[in-house]
C-alpha cells in the first residue's frame, strides 16, 4: 500500500540512482567500488523511505487510531512499519546487484553481502521510524526532516570518498554513521579492502539497530497521542 506512494518512489528509488549517477559519471573508478557504493546508497535510501512516511500517513488517515484501539502494542506497530520498510529496502537493493552482474562485477562473498544488507535494512528502517517520531501528520514535514538527516550521512559514510582518505574530524563523523559500516561490508563483499574488521561492522550495525528501534518505540509511544488528537 505504501510502496507505490510518490515520496517513497522518489526518495527510495529514483533519488539514490540519480545521486549515484551524478557521482560516478566521468570518474575513473573500479566497477567494484562503484557497485558497492551503489548498493550502499540504495539500501540506505530505500530502507529509510517507507518507515518515515507510514506514521504521518496513518495519523492523517486516522487509521492509526483504529490500529491502537486493537489489541496490539506500540512496539508491535513500530516493528511492523520497520519490517515493511526493511523488506522494501532489501528488495529494491537487489537491483544494483543485478546491474553489477550485468557489467560482470560479482560479489566475492554473497552470504556476507546479503546478511549485511538485511541487518542494514533493519537498522536504516529503524532510523527512519525514529525520524518519523516527530509528532506531525504531514508526510512532507517528516520527509524534509528525513532528508536533513540522510543527505549528510551519505556524504560522510565513505561511499564517495573512502574513510581512510578523510581528515581526522571526517573520520570521527564517519564512524558515528551506521552507513559507514554497511559501506565497509559492501566493499569487503566486492573484494575491496575494508576499513574495519567484518565482525566490528556487524556488531556496530546490530547495536545501532537496537538503539534506533528502542528509541523509536519510546518516542512513538508519546507521539501517537499527539497524532490522534
Amino acid at each position, binding site marked *: *500500500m505504501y510502496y507505490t506512494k510518490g515520496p517513497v518512489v522518489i526518495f527510495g528509488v529514483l533519488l539514490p540512482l540519480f545521486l549515484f549517477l551524478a557521482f560516478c559519471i566521468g570518474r575513473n573508478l573500479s566497477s567494484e567500488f562503484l557497485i558497492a557504493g551503489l548498493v550502499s546508497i540504495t539500501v540506505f535510501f530505500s530502507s529509510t523511505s517507507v518507515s518515515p512516511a507510514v506514521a504521518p500517513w496513518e495519523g492523517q*488517515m*486516522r*487509521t492509526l*487510531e*483504529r*490500529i*491502537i*484501539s*486493537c*489489541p*496490539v*502494542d506500540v512496539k508491535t506497530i513500530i516493528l511492523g512499519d520497520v519490517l515493511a520498510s526493511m523488506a522494501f529496502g532489501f528488495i529494491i537493493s537487489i537491483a544494483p546487484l543485478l546491474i553489477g552482474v550485468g557489467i560482470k562485477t560479482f560479489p566475492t562473498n554473497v552470504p556476507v553481502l546479503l546478511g549485511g544488507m538485511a541487518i542494514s535494512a533493519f537498522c536504516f528502517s529503524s532510523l527512519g521510524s525514529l525520524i518519523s517520531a516527530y509528532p506531525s501528520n504531514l508526510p512532507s514535514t517528516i520527509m524534509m526532516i528525513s532528508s536533513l538527516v540522510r543527505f549528510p550521512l551519505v556524504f560522510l559514510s565513505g561511499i564517495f570518498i573512502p574513510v581512510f582518505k578523510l581528515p581526522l574530524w571526517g573520520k570521527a563523523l564517519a564512524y558515528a554513521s551506521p552507513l559507514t559500516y554497511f559501506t565497509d561490508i559492501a566493499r569487503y563483499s566486492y573484494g575491496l579492502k575494508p576499513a574495519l574488521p567484518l565482525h566490528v561492522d556487524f556488531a556496530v550495525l546490530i547495536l545501532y539497530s537496537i538503539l534506533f528501534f528502542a528509541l523509536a518505540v519510546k518516542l512513538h509511544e508519546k507521539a501517537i*497521542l499527539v497524532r*490522534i*488528537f
Partner: protein
Amino acid sequence: MRAIEAENLKKRFGSVEALKGITFHVKRGEVFGYLGMNGAGKTTTVRILTGIVKPDSGCARVMGFDVSEDTLRAKEVIGVLPEVSNAYPDLTAWQNVMFTAELYGMSKREAEKRAEELLREFGIYDRRNSRVRGFSKGMKQRLMFCMALISDPEVIFLDEPTSGLDVLSARMIREKVLELAKSGKTIFLTSHNMNEVNLLCDRVAIINRGKIVVIDTPGNIRARVGGSVALEIRFDRAVELPAEFRSKKVGDKYVVYTTDVHEAFCSVADFARGAGVKVLEVNTRSPTLEDAFLSVLGVVN
C-alpha cells in the same frame, strides 16, 4: 456483572482539565448513552475506556480488565466504531475487515467466515472487492461496523454511529444496535442525536466540563425538566421572553417549560397583550430528551 467501570477518572491536557473525576458503571447487556457538548470530555472518556489514553488517576475496567494495567486483554473484548471513517481507502472492504481480524489475532479461516457473515449482514458483500475510496459515507459506516464486530466483542463503543448518514443507513445501524443489545452485547453510545439516544439507550449519562451531571434512564431525565409539560408558542414576530419564563427559542417558536399549563398559558397571554404581539399557535408536548439535556446543562433560561 458490570461490563464497564469508571472510577474517579481524571485527565489533564496541559492546563485543560478534561476529566474531573468521572465515575459510572455500565451493566452487561446495557445500551448506555453518553451525552455532552463538544469538548465536554466524551472523547477523552472513550479513549481511556478503549485503552488509547491512560488516565492521570482513577481506574477503568472493561469486562473486569483494567484498561491501564491489562490494556491488551481489555482491548481484546472491545470493538470500536469511530465517528470518522478510519478504514484504509486504498484497501478493499474485504482487506480492511481481514486486516482488523489479523490485529485481533483471529485465525484466517475464522476471520473469513465471520467477515463474509458480517459483510452480507450489512449489505456490502457484493462490494467486498472494491476499494473503500469509492464508497459512500453510508457504505463506509457499514464497513466500519463490520470491522468493529469482526472479533465478536463483548463491549462495543459507538461514536456518533449515524452522524451524516442517509435515512436508510441510519435506520439499519439503529436496528443493528438493538439486535446487538438483544444478543447480550454491551453498547456504549456517544451521540448528539437525542432522538436516537432516546430510542436506543437503557440509561444515559450527561457529561459537562469534565463532570458527570446526571446518570439515569431517558424517561427519568426527561422528567427532570422542572415539570412534565412544554408549552410551544408561535408569535407573529420575534420577542424577548422575560427570564421568569423557563424558555428557549426553537426556530420561529418559543418553548416554555412548566408544571402548570394554565398558569403558564395565562402568563404568556398577559405578556403577549402587554408587548402587543399576537399568539398565532399554541401546542403542549412532553419535554424531549434534548430539552432535558439543555436543562441539565443549564442552557435553558
